[in-house]
């Protein structure tokens, strides 16, 4: 187990990779972890590929540089599998968590990963389209992380979100909460 | 509103004697006359300039009232900060007096380098009065041209040479610019009549919210006049309509002074050394005609704004 688990998010500007990483750090902080989250800032605006990072540890985190060798890569927009370089700096122990209707096996083929690599796929886009009619894959992606941080129950993710977004209209909030749970339940792990 | 000298002669001016302004300078007169009718305690903010330097030669200060200067281009911001502190401390019960805030800047610190800061302060609506003592050039650094310098004036950075006859550009109309901020009170005057100066400044200070007063004052060195002629030259500025006297109260333009006769601009220009080149040679005739044409055009604009007509007794 490395000193800190380092996560790299791939998203597009405006898609919520930044807030996704921030909410994840809050959930894990609530579960007693030391956490850090930070986006990469440039001159890019809405739609440009961007990255955000998390560090999660049982010890205080002092390092504040970008993540070079992520333990987890989260891709919240399937088109970024081509537009970004999700495997950069990774090794066979890196876990991939990808928003896509594809199976883990197909993803491995697409990214040229060996079979031993763990890939978790989730069709987060479909879930959110069904739950609230918009492509905002953040909530299901968050739920999927319960498969990475197995010591944190999915209920903790749901509760944190419910608490943080308490001001949302009841209908929107409950749709989001369902989406988080479905993100946990509808994964394909390979 | 009217101010009588016998009521103010015993009052100490916010500015003392012992200042180091030039003999016959218009700036201290503008301060004394402007503030003589004001009954509120004042705090003064000053932009860098002659008035600032010459009244505060360390360790002496000619200011009987609290006074602060930071830099050249920021009297507007400076007065904003003091006024903001005052409002905050008053709200929190740490101060209970009614205090008014006045900023002084020359035309350099007001028309040019300090315009942004002044504009910001006017827009934000602080309760203050900004007084521009406008001698139409940068006097503190040695009579350079400013954007208030009139067309044709001989200034050290727009000298009257054999090819270029002094400043070529028309001055900007800062009073109109200030009025365009739609602040409650804006006025323009000169030292032609001390009661007018005193009344306008008093009104500016007593009006809640931002106010701006543009006072034309002579600089004996730049204008190259006999220091004793301070009042006379200002009177000529008003009578030739070179410097119209008016105020803008809540957006209503009001002409304060209509000269009885049509006085040619030469009467204002001729006593001043900075225009001496306009009175030599054939070419200068056109320049004088231009100066008169500028006046006619600007006067029309002011009359229109003030919804006035003018019928001189010629």
């Amino acid at each position, binding site marked *: 187990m490395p000193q800190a688990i380092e996560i790299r998010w791939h998203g597009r500007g405006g898609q919520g990779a930044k807030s996704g990483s*921030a909410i994840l*750090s*809050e959930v894990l*902080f609530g579960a007693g972890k*030391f*956490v*850090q*989250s*930070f*986006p990469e*800032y440039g*001159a890019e605006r809405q739609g440009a590929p961007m990255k955000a990072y998390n560090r999660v540890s049982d010890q205080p*985190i*002092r*390092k*504040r*540089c*970008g993540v*070079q060798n992520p333990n987890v890569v989260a891709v919240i927009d399937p088109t970024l599998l081509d537009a970004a370089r999700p495997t950069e700096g990774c090794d066979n122990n890196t876990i991939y968590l990808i928003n896509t209707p594809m199976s883990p096996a197909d993803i491995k083929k697409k990214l040229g990963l060996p079979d031993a690599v763990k890939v978790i796929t989730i069709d987060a886009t479909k879930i959110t389209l069904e739950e609230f009619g918009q492509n905002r894959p953040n909530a299901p992606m968050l739920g999927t992380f319960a498969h990475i941080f197995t010591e944190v129950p999915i209920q903790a993710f749901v509760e944190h979100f419910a608490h943080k977004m308490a001001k949302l209209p009841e209908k929107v909030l409950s749709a989001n909460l369902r989406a988080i749970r479905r993100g946990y339940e509808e994964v394909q792990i390979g | 509103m009217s101010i009588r000298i016998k009521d103010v002669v015993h009052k100490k001016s916010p500015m003392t004697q012992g200042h180091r302004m030039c003999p016959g300078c218009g700036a201290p007169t503008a301060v004394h006359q402007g503030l003589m009718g004001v009954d509120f*305690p004042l*705090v003064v*903010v*000053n932009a860098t300039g002659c008035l600032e*330097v010459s009244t*505060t*030669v*360390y*360790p002496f*200060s000619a*200011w009987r*009232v*609290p*006074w*602060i*200067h*930071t*830099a050249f*281009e*920021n009297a507007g*911001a*400076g007065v*904003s*900060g*003091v006024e*903001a*502190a*005052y*409002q*905050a*401390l008053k*709200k*929190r019960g740490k*101060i209970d*007096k009614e*205090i008014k805030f006045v900023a002084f800047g020359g035309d350099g610190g007001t028309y040019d380098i300090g315009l*942004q*800061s002044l504009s*910001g302060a006017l*827009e*934000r609506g602080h309760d203050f009065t900004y007084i521009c003592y406008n001698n139409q050039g940068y006097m503190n650094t040695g009579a350079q041209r400013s954007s208030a310098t009139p067309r044709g004036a001989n200034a050290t950075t727009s000298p009257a040479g054999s090819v270029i006859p002094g400043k070529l550009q028309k001055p900007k109309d800062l009073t109109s610019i200030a009025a365009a901020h739609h602040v409650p009170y804006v006025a323009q005057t000169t030292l032609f009549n001390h009661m007018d100066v005193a009344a306008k400044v008093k009104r500016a200070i007593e009006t809640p919210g931002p106010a701006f007063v543009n006072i034309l004052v002579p600089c004996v060195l730049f204008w190259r006049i006999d220091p004793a002629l301070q009042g006379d030259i200002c009177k000529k500025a008003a009578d030739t309509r070179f410097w119209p006297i008016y105020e803008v109260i809540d957006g209503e333009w009001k002409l304060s002074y209509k000269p009885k006769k049509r006085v040619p601009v030469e009467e204002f220009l001729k006593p001043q050394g900075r225009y001496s080149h306009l009175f030599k040679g054939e070419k200068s005739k056109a320049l004088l005609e231009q100066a008169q044409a500028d006046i006619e055009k600007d006067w029309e604009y002011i009359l229109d704004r003030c919804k006035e007509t003018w019928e001189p007794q010629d």
Partner: protein
Amino acid sequence: MPRKEITSGNWAFAEAMRQINPDVVAAYPITPSTDIIMKFAEFVANGEVDTNFVTVESEHSAITACVTASAAGARVMTASSANGVALMHEIFPIAGCFRTPIVFGLVNRSVGAPINIHCDHSDSMAQRDYGWIHLYCEDAQEVYDSAFMAIRLSENNDVLTPVFVCQDGFITSHGFEPVEYLDDETVKKFIGERTPINPLLDIENPVTYGSFAMSEYYFEIKRQQIEANKKALELYDGIAKEYEAISGRYYPMIDCYKTDDADYVIVVMSSASGAVKDVVDEMREKGHKVGCLRIRMFRPFPTEAIAAALKGKKAVAVLDRSLSLGGTAPLAAEVRSALYAAGELIPTNSCIYGLGGRDFFPQYAENIFMDLINGNISPEEHYIGLLE
């Protein structure tokens, strides 16, 4: 149970501002400090503070209004970065001279050209000689805590000097991490009320601020500012210890991480210190006697404390996140000077890193230590992470 939240350096500073509830805040937005001002504006809009918030039209006006408001007797705060700080340059020495306390959230960012929004220390370093106290923070917690200590230090009657609370742009300002907050009452008690000396608004005792002082007195006025800085150096630790008593967190002027028995030390400021400390731990496991000296207070410079901490070391590397083009980088120059004054002729590498947000990775720190250990020491600058 203290309140602990995941927040950014900017929001942590804004939260401190909310708790301080200054009389006046005059500010103008600029990346990456804008979040401070926006968050504070929300506090104003929601009545969580009753500060007179002056939304000026430029940084020059922001700092001007801060200086005059402070001279008037108000408790004053603001924030800025980079070119905003550069635009304020003219007014900083005036604030220093007037002895007007101001607590300033400075979010470090490079000063163009080329234009760049990321971190380096060139903005604050350009203001080092103007009579402001400089505190450089490693993380968001320290940013938050420093705001209160800065109020106390700045408003101390023997100091009366404005303070920059510096944090690394984006790295600290926009990174999210846990920050423990004090409760509002504890803050209020710690910072107390400002009791201004010779405030401009004292109508009965009128004073003149900003006189024209020629050669007759200018020097003497500057000599007094030197004294104020010496006092800041003297009084800082007492304030830090008082703060420790209410928060459990102690921030000495210099943060000596495993330097006592170290042979080789990296001297560094701000957020990069964390990576260096991680590397110190890793290298110590491999048997290398290395340490990290983080300078928190850069002005006034704790010369003697630094020389004492580095006494007898075999070699030192000083990391600067800014340049003094044509000369020695600011921190390296200071450290070398401190060592020389103490009679410590320790070989010193001057390392330039992180300009314009260039990342600082742990392996860089390891390389820097290995250079010291292997005697790869030279008077010319070493460039860390440069494409070469």
